[in-house]
């Protein structure tokens, strides 16, 4: 666990992500952004609520500790 972050945050696997944008309006603090180079989760505003995780059609989102 990284010490700087108090809670788990969502991370995107850009190899899986298809940039469909589905997860963006689901995020309460609007922490997910789309750029021409791919999807970005803003680590400073993500509250770790996990609302974006299950709806991703391809499972490209995971919480930080669930990755390994």
């Amino acid at each position, binding site marked *: 666990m990284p010490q700087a972050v108090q809670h788990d945050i969502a991370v995107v696997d850009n190899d899986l992500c*298809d940039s*469909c*944008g*589905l*997860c*963006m*309006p*689901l*995020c*309460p603090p*609007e922490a997910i*952004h*789309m*750029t*021409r180079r791919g999807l970005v989760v803003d680590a400073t505003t993500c509250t770790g609520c996990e*609302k974006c995780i*299950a*709806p*991703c*059609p*391809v*499972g490209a989102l995971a919480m930080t500790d669930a990755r390994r």
Partner: protein
Amino acid sequence: MRAVDVLVVGAGPAGCVAAWEAAAAGAGDVLLIERDRAIGAPVRCAEGVGSAGLREFLNPDGADWVSRRISRVILIAPDDTQVALAPGDVGYVLDRTRFEPVLAEEAARAGATIRISTEAVGIERADGAGGGRWRVRLRGPGGEETVGARVVIGADGVETMIGRWAGLETRVAARDMESCAQYVVGNIAFDPDAIYLHFGPTVAPGGYAWIFPKGVGVANVGLGVVTLRGDGRTVRQYLDDYIARHFPGGTVIGLTVGGVISGVTVKRTVADGVILAGDAAHMINPLSGGGIVNAMKAGRLAGRHAARAIREGDTSARNLQAYHDEWMRLLGDAHQKYYRLKETINKFDDAFLNGLARTANRIPDEKRSLGRVIGSALVHHPSLLPIAAQLFL
């Protein structure tokens, strides 16, 4: 700094028609931008449209942007019982890689300028200065540029940033988001003149599975799931299981994923100098998940009201509110009714839907319209009466 009268962000059906209509209505300098490298691609859609709605905009007869003309609808119950509705002029399965370019060409012919590979990356208020209400930062192949705009039309899809930046509430509750996955599948057997809709909480909880023909033996096969109602599988896993069960010999040629917002229109679709249209404003039929024609109809209203507001010299939210009101009268209010109906249908279990299908199949083939199926369902399943009542509320 370049200044335009109307900046349309996103060249999907909503944005293309908005730019087309704004230019045709004399809005002045209209610029349509699209982040992707090609208008119409990638396709995140099953591409089905109803005949009447489509014909309000373009004539599909003999058009090369039509993949397939559809004359039949086949509903499938969870136990695979098929209910074929009586044939008619149902609609079309489009080729959206060709369809949206045609809409964009119409916009260009009406006088709009179009730029691809160009993304809106931020907006800020510029009240008064240079006549525009907004300064919009664009990023494209030539680097960054700021453009002034009197009206910004946010036609930027489910992920709308224009809505966020303008302070409009465009977030979606998990229960109103259908996660979709779709394969283009070849070498499969089905009726190429029919669309199939497969229902049931075990097939696709909160949504349905579809087979929309692209040609003989080739179809868009996909499903939409409200994952809150699901069993933990990703939607792609739902689809893989569906294909394995129903089309084990099929050849998968393409995958697409996306979100269908099956809620109702956002409360505020306008802000000072901003109009949202299409998926950006959640203008999708919550029962069918269809959004193409809705987006075009909203785009047409958006373009028209942008032109009107500019002509009147007042692009305030108060003056643009007429757009919102007109949309609600046209379709927004009906979507609220469909939404309540969908909530009820979501409560049906597999056994109930299977029974419904058997009842419906007692109606003679040529008389089996959707109205009659509902009518007979009511006679044989009195518990449905409260739902029927909702249709007329």
